[in-house]
């Protein structure tokens, strides 16, 4: 089943942990939409269900009910609609984690090229594709370096390149700026915005980071397992150069 919306659509998503008296409803009918090229923030206190939502979206845990559409394709509708969740994660979803979690025994280029290689692309082609992304993210000069030789900001840019390399319609970023200072955190969000627009990717950024919350045009706040949409500060601030 296809959907004309190529971003992320979540409708009435529920997730229940446990059974009977001990059951806990982590998500109680979440609704969420992210357009291609859009970066939205997902905020909320600890235990509110942010990570559960991210894991459901990432096809890591199975929701209890609801419907999820990624890149125009229904992936969940009262049950998984795709046979190979691993391939779904590889081809349709890019992940950016709190820490970069680069593979320490691969150099920067192969860390990024690994995904297309896993998808069956020839090594040379995968590396070429990875190098182009590294150039776009201004870390191509560190392509042959091992991850431990990179600064925190460089590592996170490489992680973003890895998330984008298979041109997924969706990127899920889990606290991507947590270990970074303000300047680098804002740079990461700027890069995510640029890449989202360049590759028409829908991006959800889960964050607690006060520094970057003002940069979102749209924010979903999650409370007691339900999402509440609100305009972000960036939406209220006029674009530079725009007339008042």
């Amino acid at each position: 089943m296809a959907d004309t919306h190529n971003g992320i659509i979540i409708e009435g998503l529920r997730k229940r942990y446990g059974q009977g008296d001990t059951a806990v409803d982590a998500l109680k009918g979440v609704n969420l939409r992210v357009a291609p090229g859009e970066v939205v923030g997902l905020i909320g206190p600890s235990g509110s269900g942010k990570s559960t939502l991210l894991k459901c979206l990432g096809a890591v845990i199975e929701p209890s009910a609801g419907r999820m559409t990624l890149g125009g394709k229904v992936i969940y509708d009262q049950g998984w609609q795709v046979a190979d969740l691993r391939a779904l994660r590889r081809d349709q979803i890019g992940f950016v984690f709190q820490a970069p979690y680069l593979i320490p025994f691969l150099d920067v280029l192969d860390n990024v090229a690994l995904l297309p290689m896993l998808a069956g692309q020839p090594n040379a082609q995968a590396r070429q594709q990875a190098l182009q992304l590294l150039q776009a993210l201004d870390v191509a000069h560190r392509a042959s370096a091992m991850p431990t030789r990179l600064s925190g900001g460089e590592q996170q840019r490489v992680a973003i390149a890895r998330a984008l390399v298979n041109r997924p319609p969706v990127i899920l970023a889990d606290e991507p700026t947590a270990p970074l200072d303000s300047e680098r955190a804002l740079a990461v969000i700027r890069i995510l915005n640029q890449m989202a627009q360049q590759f028409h990717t829908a991006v959800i950024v889960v964050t607690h980071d006060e520094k970057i919350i003002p940069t979102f045009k749209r924010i979903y706040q999650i409370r007691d397992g339900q999402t509440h949409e609100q305009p972000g500060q960036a939406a209220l601030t006029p674009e530079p150069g725009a007339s008042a």
Partner: protein
Amino acid sequence: MISLAGRDILHAWGKFVFTGLGLGLLIGVTLTMAGVYRGMVDDAKVLLDNSGADLWVVQQDTQGPYAESSSLDADLYRSIRAMPGVARAANVTYLTMQIRRVLPGGQTSGNDVRAMIVGVAADGPGTPGHPRFLLAGRQLVRGHYEAVADVSTGLQLGERIRIRRQVYTVVGVSRRTVSSGGDPMVFIPLKDAQQAQFLKDNDAIVRQRTRTERNPVLNNPAQPGLLPAVQALQDSYPYVNAILVQLAPGSDPDNVAEPIRRWKRLSAYTRPQMEEILVAKLIATSARQIGMFLVILAIVSAAIVAFIIYTLTMGKIREIAVLKLIGTRNRTIAAMIVQQAVALGLIGFVVGKTVATFWAPAFPKYVLLEPADAVRGLVAVMVICIVASALAIRAALKIDPAEAIGG
């Protein structure tokens, strides 16, 4: 697709190399143990080869001369030699003892050597029992006081050794002439060997003569020649341990052995029968002992590989979770772990084979490292590594990709 295992090994090569070194020493011990067993079997076979015999004739109902004691009349070989199908027959005696070097001043050295003394008939080279090849010197040609010694005794040409009462000069040096127990052989003339084996000490001879003199039947004045004849008989030692028989060309060993058993009332063993006695019976307990060691070493090796691979894998939980989250197949992760285990096994095997090759010659007994055993060892190491990696694979496949996502 790049080799994740290869990249990990290159990244942490020190860890792999040093772990492989430790494992290699263990594999080296295992290969050496197998070599010790092969050496024992080979010692048994060269013992038979060196005897130059096709048949071994020994005392009836014994499995001599190597596995059990056997005593035969020294004249029996003549009647054996006359039997159909027999080309040559010669007496032989075997006696394991400590021999001492004689220093230039006539004193004996404190450093004695354990050796098997072989008494061979002084009928010249080619006679069954003589060493077939010499490294240096010549074969025994005189009837007394010459010796040919295996090179592993450390004796050199011209050196003198004391065996019981007599002093012998080393005239030849042989190689790989050892007993089934691995003791080097020293060949001496048969008469000397009989004396060394059977001659009593002086006090015992005097007591025996006195006892004989006191016997009125043997010391009868009416028969003055009887007592010296009896005493001479008592001082003789007309016994040997075995008769080595060479067959005439075209003769069937079983057909020749059968009449010897039936008409001479002796035991006669063919080469396969003698190999059965030496390999399957004489060294059977030692072989089982070594087999037990090999099993224990294999289990210890497997446990070590399993522990190392498990530890290495558990050190990469987060990376494996990330790999699974971004879509790496389980078989790719399992292959990475198996390849690392196999690589560790290969490093260990190369180290083990190398150290075993270097330290084997230093062993006091012969250690035979056969290429076929090395191949079997390599296969066993690979199988052990693959099996040992199962625990780590199981743990890796249980890692939840959600661990890469916080919360």
